[in-house]
Protein backbone atom coordinates (compact mmCIF):
# COMPACT_ATOMS: atom_id res chain seq x y z
CA UNK A 1 0.00 0.00 0.00
CA UNK A 2 0.92 3.63 -0.32
CA UNK A 3 3.26 4.79 2.38
CA UNK A 4 1.90 7.65 4.50
CA UNK A 5 5.26 8.91 5.68
CA UNK A 6 5.64 11.17 2.68
CA UNK A 7 2.62 13.29 1.88
CA UNK A 8 3.04 12.78 -1.89
CA UNK A 9 1.52 9.47 -2.94
CA UNK A 10 4.22 6.97 -3.94
CA UNK A 11 2.76 6.85 -7.43
CA UNK A 12 3.54 10.53 -8.00
CA UNK A 13 7.02 10.46 -6.51
CA UNK A 14 8.46 8.92 -9.67
CA UNK A 15 9.29 11.77 -12.06
CA UNK A 16 8.84 9.50 -15.08
CA UNK A 17 5.27 8.73 -14.06
CA UNK A 18 4.58 12.43 -13.70
CA UNK A 19 5.99 13.06 -17.18
CA UNK A 20 3.76 10.30 -18.52
CA UNK A 21 0.71 11.81 -16.85
CA UNK A 22 1.56 15.27 -18.17
CA UNK A 23 2.01 14.09 -21.76
CA UNK A 24 -1.19 12.07 -21.60
CA UNK A 25 -2.99 15.05 -20.06
CA UNK A 26 -1.89 17.27 -22.93
CA UNK A 27 -3.17 14.81 -25.51
CA UNK A 28 -6.42 14.28 -23.59
CA UNK A 29 -6.92 18.03 -23.60
CA UNK A 30 -6.36 18.11 -27.36
CA UNK A 31 -8.91 15.33 -27.76
CA UNK A 32 -11.54 17.02 -25.60
CA UNK A 33 -11.08 20.53 -26.95
CA UNK A 34 -10.14 19.61 -30.51
CA UNK A 35 -12.57 22.02 -32.22
CA UNK A 36 -11.31 24.88 -30.01
CA UNK A 37 -7.59 24.14 -30.34
CA UNK A 38 -7.40 23.25 -34.03
CA UNK A 39 -7.10 26.39 -36.18
CA UNK A 40 -8.58 24.69 -39.27
CA UNK A 41 -11.13 22.06 -40.21
CA UNK A 42 -9.09 18.80 -40.34
CA UNK A 43 -10.90 17.69 -43.51
CA UNK A 44 -10.93 21.01 -45.38
CA UNK A 45 -8.55 20.77 -48.34
CA UNK A 46 -7.20 23.73 -50.24
CA UNK A 47 -5.11 22.53 -53.16
CA UNK A 48 -3.52 25.92 -53.76
CA UNK A 49 -1.86 25.60 -50.35
CA UNK A 50 -0.62 22.03 -50.63
CA UNK A 51 2.68 20.80 -49.15
CA UNK A 52 3.53 24.05 -47.36
CA UNK A 53 6.41 23.75 -44.90
CA UNK A 54 5.78 24.66 -41.24
CA UNK A 55 5.03 28.40 -40.97
CA UNK A 56 2.93 30.79 -38.84
CA UNK A 57 -0.01 30.03 -41.16
CA UNK A 58 0.36 26.23 -40.93
CA UNK A 59 2.22 25.50 -37.68
CA UNK A 60 3.27 22.03 -38.73
CA UNK A 61 2.89 22.51 -42.48
CA UNK A 62 0.13 21.33 -44.80
CA UNK A 63 -0.33 17.96 -46.48
CA UNK A 64 -0.67 16.96 -50.13
CA UNK A 65 -4.29 18.16 -50.23
CA UNK A 66 -3.52 21.43 -48.47
CA UNK A 67 -5.02 20.30 -45.15
CA UNK A 68 -3.49 21.72 -41.96
CA UNK A 69 -1.32 19.02 -40.39
CA UNK A 70 -1.60 20.42 -36.85
CA UNK A 71 -5.40 20.43 -36.96
CA UNK A 72 -5.42 16.87 -38.24
CA UNK A 73 -3.06 15.79 -35.46
CA UNK A 74 -5.28 17.40 -32.82
CA UNK A 75 -8.38 15.63 -34.11
CA UNK A 76 -6.35 12.44 -34.47
CA UNK A 77 -5.81 12.49 -30.68
CA UNK A 78 -9.57 11.96 -30.30
CA UNK A 79 -9.48 8.87 -32.46
CA UNK A 80 -6.41 7.26 -30.92
CA UNK A 81 -7.41 7.85 -27.30
CA UNK A 82 -10.91 6.61 -28.04
CA UNK A 83 -9.49 3.46 -29.65
CA UNK A 84 -7.35 2.82 -26.57
CA UNK A 85 -10.23 3.29 -24.13
CA UNK A 86 -12.72 1.30 -26.19
CA UNK A 87 -10.40 -1.67 -26.69
CA UNK A 88 -9.19 -1.83 -23.11
CA UNK A 89 -12.63 -1.42 -21.55
CA UNK A 90 -14.25 -3.98 -23.85
CA UNK A 91 -11.44 -6.50 -23.60
CA UNK A 92 -10.87 -5.83 -19.89
CA UNK A 93 -14.52 -6.29 -18.89
CA UNK A 94 -15.07 -9.36 -21.04
CA UNK A 95 -11.75 -11.00 -20.18
CA UNK A 96 -12.14 -10.30 -16.44
CA UNK A 97 -15.61 -11.85 -16.39
CA UNK A 98 -14.35 -14.97 -18.15
CA UNK A 99 -11.38 -15.12 -15.79
CA UNK A 100 -13.39 -14.66 -12.60
CA UNK A 101 -15.92 -17.25 -13.76
CA UNK A 102 -13.20 -19.75 -14.59
CA UNK A 103 -11.31 -19.18 -11.37
CA UNK A 104 -14.39 -19.26 -9.15
CA UNK A 105 -16.22 -22.15 -10.80
CA UNK A 106 -13.20 -24.43 -11.15
CA UNK A 107 -13.51 -27.94 -12.57
CA UNK A 108 -14.81 -28.50 -16.04
CA UNK A 109 -16.04 -24.95 -16.57
CA UNK A 110 -12.58 -23.60 -15.76
CA UNK A 111 -10.91 -26.14 -18.02
CA UNK A 112 -13.19 -25.32 -20.96
CA UNK A 113 -12.95 -21.54 -20.54
CA UNK A 114 -9.18 -21.56 -20.22
CA UNK A 115 -8.72 -23.79 -23.29
CA UNK A 116 -10.76 -21.29 -25.32
CA UNK A 117 -8.60 -18.52 -23.88
CA UNK A 118 -5.46 -20.40 -24.89
CA UNK A 119 -6.69 -20.60 -28.47
CA UNK A 120 -7.24 -16.86 -28.71
CA UNK A 121 -3.92 -16.31 -26.97
CA UNK A 122 -2.12 -18.30 -29.65
CA UNK A 123 -3.43 -16.10 -32.48
CA UNK A 124 -0.99 -13.68 -34.04
CA UNK A 125 -2.91 -10.55 -33.05
CA UNK A 126 -2.36 -8.41 -36.12
CA UNK A 127 -3.15 -11.20 -38.57
CA UNK A 128 -6.36 -12.16 -36.79
CA UNK A 129 -7.31 -8.50 -36.64
CA UNK A 130 -6.56 -8.23 -40.37
CA UNK A 131 -8.77 -11.23 -41.12
CA UNK A 132 -11.60 -9.82 -39.00
CA UNK A 133 -11.24 -6.36 -40.50
CA UNK A 134 -11.18 -7.88 -44.00
CA UNK A 135 -14.28 -9.94 -43.30
CA UNK A 136 -16.26 -7.18 -41.58
CA UNK A 137 -15.10 -4.44 -43.94
CA UNK A 138 -12.73 -1.54 -43.49
CA UNK A 139 -13.83 0.75 -40.67
CA UNK A 140 -12.49 2.08 -37.41
CA UNK A 141 -15.17 0.27 -35.38
CA UNK A 142 -14.27 -3.07 -36.96
CA UNK A 143 -10.61 -2.43 -36.21
CA UNK A 144 -11.40 -1.77 -32.57
CA UNK A 145 -13.53 -4.93 -32.35
CA UNK A 146 -10.73 -6.92 -33.99
CA UNK A 147 -8.12 -5.63 -31.54
CA UNK A 148 -10.41 -6.26 -28.56
CA UNK A 149 -10.89 -9.85 -29.74
CA UNK A 150 -7.15 -10.47 -29.52
CA UNK A 151 -6.67 -8.50 -26.28
CA UNK A 152 -9.19 -10.05 -23.85
CA UNK A 153 -7.38 -13.37 -23.18
CA UNK A 154 -4.66 -11.57 -21.21
CA UNK A 155 -7.26 -10.32 -18.75
CA UNK A 156 -8.92 -13.71 -18.48
CA UNK A 157 -5.61 -15.32 -17.52
CA UNK A 158 -4.65 -12.53 -15.16
CA UNK A 159 -7.94 -12.41 -13.29
CA UNK A 160 -8.22 -16.19 -13.06
CA UNK A 161 -4.78 -16.30 -11.46
CA UNK A 162 -5.81 -13.60 -8.99
CA UNK A 163 -9.08 -15.32 -8.15
CA UNK A 164 -7.36 -18.67 -7.60
CA UNK A 165 -5.20 -17.12 -4.92
CA UNK A 166 -7.91 -14.88 -3.43
CA UNK A 167 -10.54 -17.63 -3.35
CA UNK A 168 -8.89 -19.31 -0.38
CA UNK A 169 -8.45 -16.13 1.68
CA UNK A 170 -10.23 -15.96 5.01
CA UNK A 171 -12.45 -13.03 4.12
CA UNK A 172 -13.84 -14.87 1.12
CA UNK A 173 -14.46 -17.99 3.15
CA UNK A 174 -16.08 -15.78 5.78
CA UNK A 175 -18.36 -14.16 3.20
CA UNK A 176 -19.29 -17.55 1.83
CA UNK A 177 -20.04 -19.00 5.26
CA UNK A 178 -22.25 -16.00 5.98
CA UNK A 179 -24.30 -17.13 2.99
CA UNK A 180 -23.27 -14.42 0.52
CA UNK A 181 -24.45 -15.29 -2.99
CA UNK A 182 -21.83 -16.08 -5.63
CA UNK A 183 -22.50 -12.85 -7.53
CA UNK A 184 -21.83 -10.79 -4.42
CA UNK A 185 -18.61 -12.64 -3.66
CA UNK A 186 -17.42 -12.09 -7.23
CA UNK A 187 -18.31 -8.42 -7.54
CA UNK A 188 -17.69 -7.28 -3.94
CA UNK A 189 -14.67 -9.35 -3.00
CA UNK A 190 -12.87 -11.04 -5.86
CA UNK A 191 -12.95 -8.44 -8.65
CA UNK A 192 -12.13 -5.34 -6.56
CA UNK A 193 -9.13 -7.09 -5.07
CA UNK A 194 -7.86 -8.11 -8.50
CA UNK A 195 -8.04 -4.54 -9.70
CA UNK A 196 -4.37 -3.64 -9.23
CA UNK A 197 -2.84 -5.95 -11.82
CA UNK A 198 -5.77 -5.25 -14.14
CA UNK A 199 -5.01 -1.52 -13.99
CA UNK A 200 -1.31 -2.01 -14.72
CA UNK A 201 -2.14 -4.16 -17.69
CA UNK A 202 -4.84 -1.80 -18.88
CA UNK A 203 -2.43 1.11 -18.97
CA UNK A 204 0.12 -0.85 -20.98
CA UNK A 205 -2.60 -2.23 -23.27
CA UNK A 206 -3.86 1.28 -24.06
CA UNK A 207 -0.54 1.89 -25.76
CA UNK A 208 -0.64 -1.53 -27.39
CA UNK A 209 -4.14 -0.97 -28.75
CA UNK A 210 -3.21 2.44 -30.14
CA UNK A 211 -0.15 0.94 -31.84
CA UNK A 212 -2.17 -1.95 -33.27
CA UNK A 213 -4.90 0.34 -34.60
CA UNK A 214 -2.35 2.66 -36.17
CA UNK A 215 -0.56 -0.31 -37.72
CA UNK A 216 -3.77 -1.73 -39.15
CA UNK A 217 -4.69 1.66 -40.57
CA UNK A 218 -1.20 2.01 -42.01
CA UNK A 219 -1.55 -1.17 -44.08
CA UNK A 220 -5.10 -0.33 -45.11
CA UNK A 221 -7.30 -2.31 -42.71
CA UNK A 222 -8.31 0.36 -40.25
CA UNK A 223 -9.62 3.87 -40.49
CA UNK A 224 -9.85 4.98 -44.11
CA UNK A 225 -8.73 8.31 -45.58
CA UNK A 226 -9.62 11.14 -45.21
CA UNK A 227 -10.03 10.31 -41.48
CA UNK A 228 -7.34 12.18 -39.53
CA UNK A 229 -6.14 8.95 -37.91
CA UNK A 230 -2.40 9.01 -37.14
CA UNK A 231 -1.61 5.67 -38.82
CA UNK A 232 -3.44 6.79 -41.96
CA UNK A 233 -1.51 10.06 -41.86
CA UNK A 234 1.86 8.29 -41.68
CA UNK A 235 0.76 6.10 -44.57
CA UNK A 236 -0.33 9.13 -46.63
CA UNK A 237 2.91 10.92 -45.81
CA UNK A 238 5.04 7.95 -46.75
CA UNK A 239 5.41 8.93 -50.41
CA UNK A 240 6.73 12.33 -49.32
CA UNK A 241 9.43 10.84 -47.11
CA UNK A 242 12.25 12.35 -49.17
CA UNK A 243 10.77 15.72 -50.04
CA UNK A 244 8.48 16.56 -47.12
CA UNK A 245 9.69 14.51 -44.17
CA UNK A 246 7.41 16.29 -41.69
CA UNK A 247 4.29 14.72 -43.20
CA UNK A 248 4.95 11.20 -41.85
CA UNK A 249 7.21 12.50 -39.04
CA UNK A 250 4.74 14.42 -36.86
CA UNK A 251 1.93 11.85 -36.77
CA UNK A 252 4.55 9.16 -36.06
CA UNK A 253 5.91 11.19 -33.15
CA UNK A 254 2.37 11.74 -31.86
CA UNK A 255 1.78 7.98 -31.69
CA UNK A 256 5.18 7.48 -30.06
CA UNK A 257 4.47 10.11 -27.37
CA UNK A 258 1.02 8.82 -26.42
CA UNK A 259 2.15 5.21 -26.26
CA UNK A 260 5.25 6.17 -24.24
CA UNK A 261 3.01 8.09 -21.82
CA UNK A 262 0.82 5.04 -21.23
CA UNK A 263 3.91 2.87 -20.79
CA UNK A 264 5.38 5.24 -18.20
CA UNK A 265 2.09 5.38 -16.30
CA UNK A 266 1.79 1.58 -16.45
CA UNK A 267 5.32 1.20 -15.07
CA UNK A 268 4.56 3.66 -12.30
CA UNK A 269 1.39 1.79 -11.35
CA UNK A 270 3.26 -1.48 -11.32
CA UNK A 271 5.94 -0.13 -9.03
CA UNK A 272 3.33 1.31 -6.70
CA UNK A 273 1.25 -1.85 -6.51
CA UNK A 274 4.14 -4.25 -6.20
CA UNK A 275 6.32 -3.01 -3.33
CA UNK A 276 8.88 -5.75 -3.98
CA UNK A 277 9.73 -4.10 -7.25
CA UNK A 278 10.24 -0.66 -5.75
CA UNK A 279 13.53 0.82 -6.74
CA UNK A 280 14.43 -2.13 -8.86
CA UNK A 281 12.96 -0.94 -12.12
Amino acid sequence: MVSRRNSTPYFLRNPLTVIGLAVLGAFALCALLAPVIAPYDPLADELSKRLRPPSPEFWLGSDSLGRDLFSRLVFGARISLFVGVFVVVTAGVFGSLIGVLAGYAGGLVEEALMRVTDVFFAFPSLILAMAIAAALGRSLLNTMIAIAVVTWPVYARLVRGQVLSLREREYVTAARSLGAPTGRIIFKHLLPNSLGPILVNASLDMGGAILAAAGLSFIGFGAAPPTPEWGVMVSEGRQFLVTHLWLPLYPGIAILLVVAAFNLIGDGLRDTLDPQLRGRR
Partner: protein
Amino acid sequence: MRFVSYIARRIIGIFGVLLGVSLITFFISHALPADPAAAALSSHASNEQVAQYRRDLGLDRPVVEQYVTYLGGLLRGDFGRSIRTQRPVIDDLRAFLPATVELSLGALLVAVFLGIPLGVLSSLSRNRLPDHFVRLFSLLGGSVPIFFLGLLLISVFYNQLGWFPAGGRIDTFVTPPPHVTGLFVLDSILAGDMDALKSSLHHLILPSFTLGYYSTAVTARMTRSSMLEVLGQDYVRTARAKGLPQRIVVARHALRNALVPIITVVGILFGSLLSGAVLTETVFSWPGLGGYATTSATGVDFPAVMGVTVIAAMLFPVLSMLVDLLYTRLDPRITTS
Protein backbone atom coordinates in the same frame (compact mmCIF):
# COMPACT_ATOMS: atom_id res chain seq x y z
CA MET B 1 8.96 -42.25 -19.10
CA ARG B 2 7.59 -39.18 -17.40
CA PHE B 3 9.35 -37.09 -20.01
CA VAL B 4 7.68 -38.95 -22.88
CA SER B 5 4.22 -38.54 -21.39
CA TYR B 6 4.95 -34.84 -20.84
CA ILE B 7 5.82 -34.39 -24.51
CA ALA B 8 2.77 -36.40 -25.52
CA ARG B 9 0.51 -34.19 -23.39
CA ARG B 10 2.01 -31.05 -24.89
CA ILE B 11 1.52 -32.35 -28.43
CA ILE B 12 -2.11 -33.21 -27.71
CA GLY B 13 -2.47 -29.67 -26.40
CA ILE B 14 -1.02 -28.31 -29.64
CA PHE B 15 -3.60 -30.29 -31.63
CA GLY B 16 -6.27 -28.79 -29.39
CA VAL B 17 -5.05 -25.33 -30.30
CA LEU B 18 -5.02 -26.29 -34.00
CA LEU B 19 -8.63 -27.42 -33.70
CA GLY B 20 -9.68 -24.20 -31.98
CA VAL B 21 -7.71 -21.90 -34.24
CA SER B 22 -8.99 -23.51 -37.42
CA LEU B 23 -12.55 -23.41 -36.05
CA ILE B 24 -12.36 -19.70 -35.25
CA THR B 25 -10.70 -18.66 -38.50
CA PHE B 26 -13.17 -20.82 -40.38
CA PHE B 27 -16.06 -19.19 -38.56
CA ILE B 28 -14.73 -15.71 -39.25
CA SER B 29 -14.27 -16.41 -42.91
CA HIS B 30 -17.62 -18.13 -43.47
CA ALA B 31 -20.10 -16.49 -41.16
CA LEU B 32 -19.19 -12.88 -41.83
CA PRO B 33 -20.58 -10.67 -44.55
CA ALA B 34 -17.65 -10.58 -46.98
CA ASP B 35 -18.26 -12.85 -49.98
CA PRO B 36 -15.02 -14.30 -51.37
CA ALA B 37 -16.71 -15.33 -54.61
CA ALA B 38 -17.94 -11.82 -55.31
CA ALA B 39 -14.51 -10.44 -54.36
CA ALA B 40 -12.67 -12.86 -56.66
CA LEU B 41 -14.84 -12.23 -59.70
CA SER B 42 -15.11 -8.83 -61.28
CA SER B 43 -18.11 -6.68 -60.51
CA HIS B 44 -19.42 -7.45 -64.01
CA ALA B 45 -19.92 -11.15 -63.20
CA SER B 46 -23.51 -12.29 -63.50
CA ASN B 47 -25.35 -13.89 -60.60
CA GLU B 48 -25.12 -17.26 -62.34
CA GLN B 49 -21.34 -16.92 -62.67
CA VAL B 50 -21.03 -16.11 -58.96
CA ALA B 51 -23.26 -19.07 -58.07
CA GLN B 52 -21.22 -21.37 -60.30
CA TYR B 53 -18.03 -20.12 -58.68
CA ARG B 54 -19.44 -20.75 -55.22
CA ARG B 55 -20.33 -24.31 -56.25
CA ASP B 56 -16.81 -24.88 -57.57
CA LEU B 57 -15.32 -23.77 -54.26
CA GLY B 58 -17.83 -25.82 -52.29
CA LEU B 59 -19.18 -22.65 -50.67
CA ASP B 60 -22.79 -23.77 -51.27
CA ARG B 61 -22.50 -26.78 -48.97
CA PRO B 62 -23.44 -26.68 -45.25
CA VAL B 63 -20.82 -24.86 -43.16
CA VAL B 64 -20.21 -27.84 -40.88
CA GLU B 65 -19.50 -30.05 -43.87
CA GLN B 66 -17.14 -27.43 -45.28
CA TYR B 67 -15.28 -27.24 -41.96
CA VAL B 68 -14.86 -31.01 -41.65
CA THR B 69 -13.50 -31.11 -45.20
CA TYR B 70 -11.12 -28.24 -44.41
CA LEU B 71 -9.90 -29.79 -41.15
CA GLY B 72 -9.36 -33.14 -42.85
CA GLY B 73 -7.27 -31.36 -45.47
CA LEU B 74 -5.26 -29.50 -42.78
CA LEU B 75 -4.26 -32.74 -41.10
CA ARG B 76 -2.92 -33.95 -44.45
CA GLY B 77 -1.09 -30.65 -44.98
CA ASP B 78 -3.66 -29.44 -47.52
CA PHE B 79 -4.65 -25.82 -46.88
CA GLY B 80 -6.99 -25.54 -49.85
CA ARG B 81 -6.49 -23.44 -52.94
CA SER B 82 -5.90 -19.71 -52.96
CA ILE B 83 -8.73 -17.84 -54.66
CA ARG B 84 -6.38 -15.14 -55.86
CA THR B 85 -3.29 -17.00 -57.06
CA GLN B 86 -5.21 -20.20 -57.98
CA ARG B 87 -2.35 -22.19 -56.48
CA PRO B 88 -2.50 -24.54 -53.47
CA VAL B 89 -2.12 -22.36 -50.35
CA ILE B 90 0.58 -24.69 -49.02
CA ASP B 91 2.73 -23.91 -52.08
CA ASP B 92 2.31 -20.19 -51.51
CA LEU B 93 3.18 -20.60 -47.84
CA ARG B 94 6.29 -22.57 -48.75
CA ALA B 95 7.32 -19.84 -51.16
CA PHE B 96 6.83 -16.95 -48.72
CA LEU B 97 7.68 -18.51 -45.35
CA PRO B 98 11.51 -18.57 -45.70
CA ALA B 99 11.74 -14.79 -46.17
CA THR B 100 9.71 -14.24 -43.00
CA VAL B 101 11.71 -16.83 -41.05
CA GLU B 102 14.95 -15.14 -42.14
CA LEU B 103 13.64 -11.73 -41.09
CA SER B 104 12.36 -13.06 -37.75
CA LEU B 105 15.65 -14.82 -37.00
CA GLY B 106 17.46 -11.59 -37.83
CA ALA B 107 15.21 -9.73 -35.41
CA LEU B 108 15.74 -12.38 -32.75
CA LEU B 109 19.52 -12.13 -33.12
CA VAL B 110 19.27 -8.35 -32.70
CA ALA B 111 17.13 -8.84 -29.58
CA VAL B 112 19.52 -11.36 -28.01
CA PHE B 113 22.87 -9.85 -28.98
CA LEU B 114 21.85 -6.26 -28.37
CA GLY B 115 19.18 -6.65 -25.68
CA ILE B 116 21.04 -8.89 -23.24
CA PRO B 117 24.34 -6.90 -23.23
CA LEU B 118 22.38 -3.65 -22.86
CA GLY B 119 20.42 -5.13 -19.98
CA VAL B 120 23.61 -6.31 -18.28
CA LEU B 121 25.26 -2.93 -18.78
CA SER B 122 22.17 -1.24 -17.37
CA SER B 123 22.08 -3.45 -14.27
CA LEU B 124 25.79 -2.94 -13.57
CA SER B 125 25.52 0.85 -13.83
CA ARG B 126 22.23 1.15 -11.99
CA ASN B 127 20.93 4.71 -11.79
CA ARG B 128 23.99 6.09 -13.56
CA LEU B 129 24.24 7.46 -17.07
CA PRO B 130 24.49 4.19 -19.08
CA ASP B 131 21.50 2.86 -17.14
CA HIS B 132 19.41 5.93 -17.95
CA PHE B 133 20.43 5.66 -21.58
CA VAL B 134 19.42 1.99 -21.81
CA ARG B 135 16.11 2.68 -20.06
CA LEU B 136 15.31 5.48 -22.50
CA PHE B 137 16.25 3.16 -25.37
CA SER B 138 13.86 0.54 -23.94
CA LEU B 139 11.05 3.02 -23.42
CA LEU B 140 11.32 4.14 -27.04
CA GLY B 141 11.44 0.53 -28.22
CA GLY B 142 8.22 -0.23 -26.41
CA SER B 143 6.48 2.83 -27.76
CA VAL B 144 7.57 3.47 -31.33
CA PRO B 145 5.19 2.27 -34.06
CA ILE B 146 7.11 -0.34 -36.04
CA PHE B 147 6.10 1.07 -39.44
CA PHE B 148 7.19 4.54 -38.37
CA LEU B 149 10.56 3.24 -37.19
CA GLY B 150 11.02 1.50 -40.54
CA LEU B 151 10.28 4.71 -42.44
CA LEU B 152 12.64 6.71 -40.20
CA LEU B 153 15.46 4.21 -40.75
CA ILE B 154 14.88 4.30 -44.50
CA SER B 155 14.89 8.09 -44.40
CA VAL B 156 18.17 8.26 -42.49
CA PHE B 157 20.15 5.27 -43.72
CA TYR B 158 18.93 5.14 -47.31
CA ASN B 159 17.77 8.61 -48.31
CA GLN B 160 20.29 10.67 -46.31
CA LEU B 161 23.33 8.47 -45.82
CA GLY B 162 22.89 5.86 -48.54
CA TRP B 163 24.39 3.15 -46.34
CA PHE B 164 21.66 0.54 -46.68
CA PRO B 165 19.10 -0.40 -49.36
CA ALA B 166 15.47 0.60 -48.77
CA GLY B 167 13.87 -2.74 -49.54
CA GLY B 168 13.95 -6.19 -51.08
CA ARG B 169 16.00 -9.21 -50.04
CA ILE B 170 18.93 -8.96 -52.47
CA ASP B 171 20.25 -6.57 -55.13
CA THR B 172 18.55 -7.00 -58.50
CA PHE B 173 21.90 -7.52 -60.24
CA VAL B 174 22.93 -10.30 -57.85
CA THR B 175 21.67 -13.82 -58.57
CA PRO B 176 19.95 -15.27 -55.49
CA PRO B 177 21.72 -18.36 -54.12
CA PRO B 178 20.38 -21.79 -55.15
CA HIS B 179 17.39 -22.77 -53.00
CA VAL B 180 18.27 -25.04 -50.10
CA THR B 181 16.61 -23.58 -46.99
CA GLY B 182 15.15 -20.51 -48.67
CA LEU B 183 17.08 -18.28 -46.22
CA PHE B 184 19.27 -16.21 -48.54
CA VAL B 185 22.03 -15.65 -45.99
CA LEU B 186 22.28 -19.33 -45.11
CA ASP B 187 21.97 -20.49 -48.73
CA SER B 188 24.71 -18.07 -49.81
CA ILE B 189 27.05 -19.51 -47.19
CA LEU B 190 26.18 -23.05 -48.26
CA ALA B 191 26.85 -22.15 -51.88
CA GLY B 192 30.01 -20.23 -50.96
CA ASP B 193 28.67 -17.24 -52.89
CA MET B 194 30.25 -14.16 -51.25
CA ASP B 195 28.46 -11.60 -53.42
CA ALA B 196 25.05 -13.02 -52.61
CA LEU B 197 25.98 -13.25 -48.93
CA LYS B 198 27.10 -9.64 -48.78
CA SER B 199 24.07 -8.38 -50.64
CA SER B 200 21.53 -10.37 -48.65
CA LEU B 201 23.09 -9.42 -45.29
CA HIS B 202 23.12 -5.81 -46.41
CA HIS B 203 19.40 -6.00 -47.15
CA LEU B 204 18.62 -7.83 -43.93
CA ILE B 205 20.06 -5.30 -41.47
CA LEU B 206 17.50 -2.47 -41.46
CA PRO B 207 14.40 -4.71 -41.50
CA SER B 208 15.87 -6.92 -38.75
CA PHE B 209 16.52 -3.95 -36.53
CA THR B 210 13.07 -2.52 -37.27
CA LEU B 211 11.33 -5.76 -36.38
CA GLY B 212 13.71 -6.52 -33.53
CA TYR B 213 13.74 -3.17 -31.73
CA TYR B 214 10.64 -3.90 -29.67
CA SER B 215 11.99 -7.32 -28.66
CA THR B 216 15.39 -5.79 -27.92
CA ALA B 217 13.74 -3.29 -25.59
CA VAL B 218 11.77 -5.96 -23.74
CA THR B 219 14.82 -8.24 -23.52
CA ALA B 220 16.97 -5.42 -22.16
CA ARG B 221 14.38 -4.58 -19.50
CA MET B 222 13.94 -8.18 -18.51
CA THR B 223 17.71 -8.74 -18.39
CA ARG B 224 18.15 -5.65 -16.24
CA SER B 225 15.58 -6.62 -13.63
CA SER B 226 16.61 -10.27 -13.64
CA MET B 227 20.28 -9.31 -13.23
CA LEU B 228 19.51 -6.87 -10.43
CA GLU B 229 17.73 -9.63 -8.57
CA VAL B 230 20.59 -12.08 -9.02
CA LEU B 231 23.34 -9.55 -8.27
CA GLY B 232 21.86 -9.09 -4.79
CA GLN B 233 22.18 -12.78 -3.96
CA ASP B 234 24.62 -14.15 -1.41
CA TYR B 235 26.53 -16.33 -3.84
CA VAL B 236 27.37 -13.33 -5.98
CA ARG B 237 28.72 -11.54 -2.92
CA THR B 238 30.68 -14.65 -2.03
CA ALA B 239 32.12 -14.80 -5.54
CA ARG B 240 33.15 -11.15 -5.24
CA ALA B 241 34.59 -11.73 -1.77
CA LYS B 242 36.70 -14.53 -3.17
CA GLY B 243 38.31 -11.87 -5.34
CA LEU B 244 36.99 -13.15 -8.66
CA PRO B 245 37.23 -10.56 -11.41
CA GLN B 246 34.02 -8.72 -12.32
CA ARG B 247 33.98 -10.36 -15.75
CA ILE B 248 33.78 -13.85 -14.26
CA VAL B 249 31.27 -12.91 -11.58
CA VAL B 250 28.96 -11.36 -14.16
CA ALA B 251 29.25 -14.03 -16.83
CA ARG B 252 29.51 -17.21 -14.75
CA HIS B 253 27.61 -16.44 -11.58
CA ALA B 254 25.10 -13.73 -12.34
CA LEU B 255 24.10 -13.87 -16.00
CA ARG B 256 23.81 -17.63 -16.16
CA ASN B 257 21.35 -17.63 -13.29
CA ALA B 258 19.52 -14.60 -14.59
CA LEU B 259 18.97 -16.32 -17.91
CA VAL B 260 15.86 -18.39 -17.16
CA PRO B 261 13.28 -15.59 -17.16
CA ILE B 262 15.11 -13.97 -20.09
CA ILE B 263 14.67 -17.10 -22.17
CA THR B 264 10.95 -17.21 -21.39
CA VAL B 265 10.57 -13.67 -22.62
CA VAL B 266 12.65 -14.24 -25.75
CA GLY B 267 10.58 -17.34 -26.58
CA ILE B 268 7.33 -15.43 -26.23
CA LEU B 269 8.73 -12.53 -28.24
CA PHE B 270 9.79 -14.83 -31.06
CA GLY B 271 6.27 -16.20 -31.26
CA SER B 272 4.86 -12.71 -31.48
CA LEU B 273 7.29 -11.42 -34.13
CA LEU B 274 4.94 -12.39 -36.93
CA SER B 275 2.50 -9.57 -36.21
CA GLY B 276 5.33 -7.07 -36.44
CA ALA B 277 6.63 -8.83 -39.53
CA VAL B 278 3.45 -7.89 -41.37
CA LEU B 279 4.24 -4.20 -40.89
CA THR B 280 7.99 -4.52 -41.40
CA GLU B 281 7.50 -6.44 -44.63
CA THR B 282 5.11 -3.80 -45.91
CA VAL B 283 7.57 -0.99 -45.25
CA PHE B 284 10.61 -2.78 -46.69
CA SER B 285 8.84 -4.57 -49.59
CA TRP B 286 10.06 -7.81 -48.02
CA PRO B 287 8.52 -10.72 -49.94
CA GLY B 288 7.34 -12.77 -46.94
CA LEU B 289 4.22 -14.16 -45.29
CA GLY B 290 3.18 -10.77 -43.93
CA GLY B 291 2.90 -9.23 -47.34
CA TYR B 292 1.15 -12.37 -48.58
CA ALA B 293 -1.34 -12.14 -45.70
CA THR B 294 -1.98 -8.45 -46.39
CA THR B 295 -2.66 -8.90 -50.10
CA SER B 296 -4.75 -11.98 -49.40
CA ALA B 297 -6.84 -10.24 -46.76
CA THR B 298 -7.35 -7.22 -49.02
CA GLY B 299 -8.63 -9.55 -51.74
CA VAL B 300 -10.83 -11.48 -49.24
CA ASP B 301 -8.83 -14.58 -50.23
CA PHE B 302 -9.85 -16.58 -47.16
CA PRO B 303 -8.14 -19.91 -47.83
CA ALA B 304 -4.85 -17.97 -47.98
CA VAL B 305 -5.56 -15.85 -44.89
CA MET B 306 -6.62 -18.95 -42.96
CA GLY B 307 -3.45 -20.72 -44.02
CA VAL B 308 -1.23 -17.92 -42.70
CA THR B 309 -3.26 -17.63 -39.49
CA VAL B 310 -3.13 -21.35 -38.75
CA ILE B 311 0.63 -21.55 -39.41
CA ALA B 312 1.29 -18.48 -37.29
CA ALA B 313 -0.96 -19.64 -34.47
CA MET B 314 0.74 -23.04 -34.34
CA LEU B 315 4.09 -21.32 -33.97
CA PHE B 316 3.22 -20.05 -30.51
CA PRO B 317 2.42 -23.31 -28.67
CA VAL B 318 5.25 -25.12 -30.46
CA LEU B 319 7.75 -22.46 -29.40
CA SER B 320 6.46 -22.37 -25.84
CA MET B 321 6.94 -26.14 -25.64
CA LEU B 322 10.52 -25.79 -26.89
CA VAL B 323 11.22 -23.03 -24.38
CA ASP B 324 9.87 -25.17 -21.54
CA LEU B 325 12.11 -28.02 -22.65
CA LEU B 326 15.06 -25.65 -22.76
CA TYR B 327 14.42 -24.73 -19.10
CA THR B 328 14.85 -28.26 -17.91
CA ARG B 329 18.33 -28.14 -19.47
CA LEU B 330 19.21 -24.78 -17.95
CA ASP B 331 17.80 -25.26 -14.50
CA PRO B 332 17.77 -28.83 -13.19
CA ARG B 333 15.36 -27.79 -10.44
CA ILE B 334 12.64 -27.35 -13.03
CA THR B 335 11.23 -30.72 -14.02
CA THR B 336 8.69 -31.71 -16.63
CA SER B 337 6.23 -33.09 -14.10
